[in-house]
């Protein structure tokens, strides 16, 4: 990326040449580097080490480096005996379902608000913005009661994955983000398509979606990560179905029954998808976060 060469520009060329400033900034950056390694990378590396260290060694001397060799069996035991493999799969299913719901809601909703622009669009948009002021956690209580006792339907959705997939789609942030993106698409493309006789369906699938790959990437990556990290809602919905719980919910529950070596191995497995996903999709993550910042600013 060419922007790597550019710096923030705070220090001018001359200033970089000055020895004392160079020394100050240089050592500050060196310190920053050390601290980032220690604080950002340290715990993760320790987790990886702890996951393959025998329990006894972790308990007695957490900072030692394999005094009695590694215990790869922690990982296999975690996967099969403690059944982390199962919970891993549950997490994948939950993440994918939530992702799908979010993508469907955000793309179709933003399409209506940005491209189709019906008369009632502005009203809906303000209703959406209104929900941004309501923190999600505040809705946990009414949502829970709604899941247990839905109005009109005589069936409880507690213990069902639908109770996790569907509410995930209600993210005004996603819709607003996508709407902004669609707003920036050139209108001429739409006009040209309409003249060619394209209906809204063609417009959506053949023009808007293909052009939206970057924003779809950002929303997808954050949607999957958010569901992977989610705790409270799946905890409440799936309390009585331990076999179907995701990793976040299950790991604290099995802690009293699991020796720490295997527990750490389970925690590492739980972090693998986000970690690897982050390393692979780094740019999307970082750009998306910056985007979010720009949106808020």
């Amino acid at each position: 990326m060419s922007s790597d060469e550019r710096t923030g520009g705070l220090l001018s060329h001359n200033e970089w040449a000055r020895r004392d400033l160079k020394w100050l900034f240089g050592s500050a950056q060196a310190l920053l580097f050390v601290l980032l390694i220690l604080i950002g990378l340290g715990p993760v590396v320790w987790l990886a080490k702890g996951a393959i260290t025998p329990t006894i060694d972790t308990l007695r001397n957490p900072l030692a480096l394999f005094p009695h060799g590694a215990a790869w069996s922690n990982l296999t035991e975690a996967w099969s005996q403690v059944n982390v493999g199962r919970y891993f799969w549950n997490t994948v299913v939950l993440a994918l379902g939530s992702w799908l719901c979010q993508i469907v809601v955000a793309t179709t909703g933003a399409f209506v608000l940005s491209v189709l622009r019906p008369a009632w669009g502005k009203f809906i948009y303000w209703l959406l913005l209104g929900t941004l002021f309501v923190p999600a956690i505040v809705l946990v209580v009414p949502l829970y009661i709604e899941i247990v006792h839905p109005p009109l339907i005589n069936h409880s959705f507690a213990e069902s994955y639908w109770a996790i997939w569907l509410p995930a789609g209600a993210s005004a942030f996603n819709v607003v983000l996508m709407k902004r993106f669609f707003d920036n698409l050139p209108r001429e493309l739409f006009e040209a398509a309409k003249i060619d006789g394209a209906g809204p369906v063609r417009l959506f699938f053949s023009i808007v979606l293909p052009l939206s790959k970057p924003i779809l990437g950002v929303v997808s990556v954050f949607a999957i990560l958010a569901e992977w990290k989610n705790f409270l809602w799946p905890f409440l919905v799936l309390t009585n179905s331990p076999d179907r719980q995701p990793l976040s919910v299950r790991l604290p529950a099995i802690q009293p029954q699991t020796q720490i070596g295997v527990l750490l191995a389970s925690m590492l497995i739980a972090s693998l998808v986000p970690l690897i996903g982050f390393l692979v999709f780094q740019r999307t993550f970082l750009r998306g976060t910056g985007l979010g910042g720009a949106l808020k600013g």
Partner: protein
Amino acid sequence: MKSSFRAIRLLVVAAALFLVVGAASLANAGSQAKVTINVAALRPGSSADAQKQFDDNVALFEKQHPNISVKPVEYAWNGATFAAQLAAGRLPTVFTVPFTDARTLGEHRQVADITAGVKKWPYYKKFQKTIIAEATTSKGRVIGVPYAAYAQALHYNRQLFKEAGLDPNKPPTTWAQLRKYAKQISQRTGAAGYAQMGLNDNTAGWIATTVAYTLGGRMEQGRGANATATLNSPFTVQALNLLKQMRWTDKSMGSTFDYTWPTINQAFAAGKIGMFINGSDIYTFLVQAANLDPKIYGIAPLPLAKQKNAGVMGGGSIAVVRPDTKGAKMNAALQWIDFFYMEKLIKKPAALRDARILVANQQPVGVPAFPIFNKTQYDRANSWIKSYINVPIKQMNPFLKGIFKQNLYPEPAASTQSVYHALDPVVQAVFADKNANVSALLAQANDVAQKAIREGK
């Protein structure tokens, strides 16, 4: 037109067959109305073998009661979501609740009133008074059937006793002795000599109440919503001061103070704790979930003060029925409870069947419990399953011999969980703050508990 004749003949035969079969099924259906009940079966995650044993039980019951169909449902008690489960109609017809919650649920009519049905049982009058009280509301209505009971006990690590120079066959019998032993263990082995639950999920208050009982104290006086909270009685103050001294003066309680039921068991099994208080039935969890080495396990009765009301708090499980169950279904539910939960205490074949389920689920048989009826019956039931007993009985002798010399008392009757909840922060303050003002904190806790009792929470 031969083919059409043949066709008509075939049609007539078919029709006749149809009529015969139909009549037969109608006759069958009309002879008895079948009742279906869902029942709480095994915990989720139980072994396939244990499931099979349970299903065998169900088959036997259905044979004895041809008009009842039983559907097992995986079940585990969960206090936080009980109300939601009840509202969503997801509870089986017959399920179980702990002693602690049973009466509160009964007062709020969230479990069925089964007084009429239960009183007809031949052994109804033989229940231990304190045990059946745990399932009786303040208005005298019976809302469940206690089927398993335990007493609070002192669990100790025989290995750590030996390392500290103490005789593992002579656990402490007074609080002064316990204090001394705790100090000795922590000084000579580095483990926590004595540990106590301190997490504010009501377990801290539960054990603090247990200790107060052994000194002669109680948390409530009176019944129902008119009960008076007595959290700040001198006995509770004494119990907490004892804790304070062990924590700050003796420094014999280690460094972790947020233990709860499973985590204190885990730490004990890992050899970090010399002595601690928990229900007498935790051996199952210790060996199954916490990987305890059975050789180090010791259990003793709680030390009691020489006070009139000093006694051991009891706990246990109660079989209850969904509040919306009526008529034939209620009868079926009671019959199931009698068959599955009670028979094993009174009839040998049932006791053996139950032991086989435990063995199939790789659970220990012979874990110290407390009699539901009386000691004679309890001993007799234990003798039936003698060949299945696989717990280190000899190591459990101090408890098995000593518990029957002690008085068992029920937990506080009104708003039990709220009482424990009010005590939690007091226990935590004692653990966290060297200068905690126990009297003042208990006075506050008493107000909180009194309010909860008055409001029936």
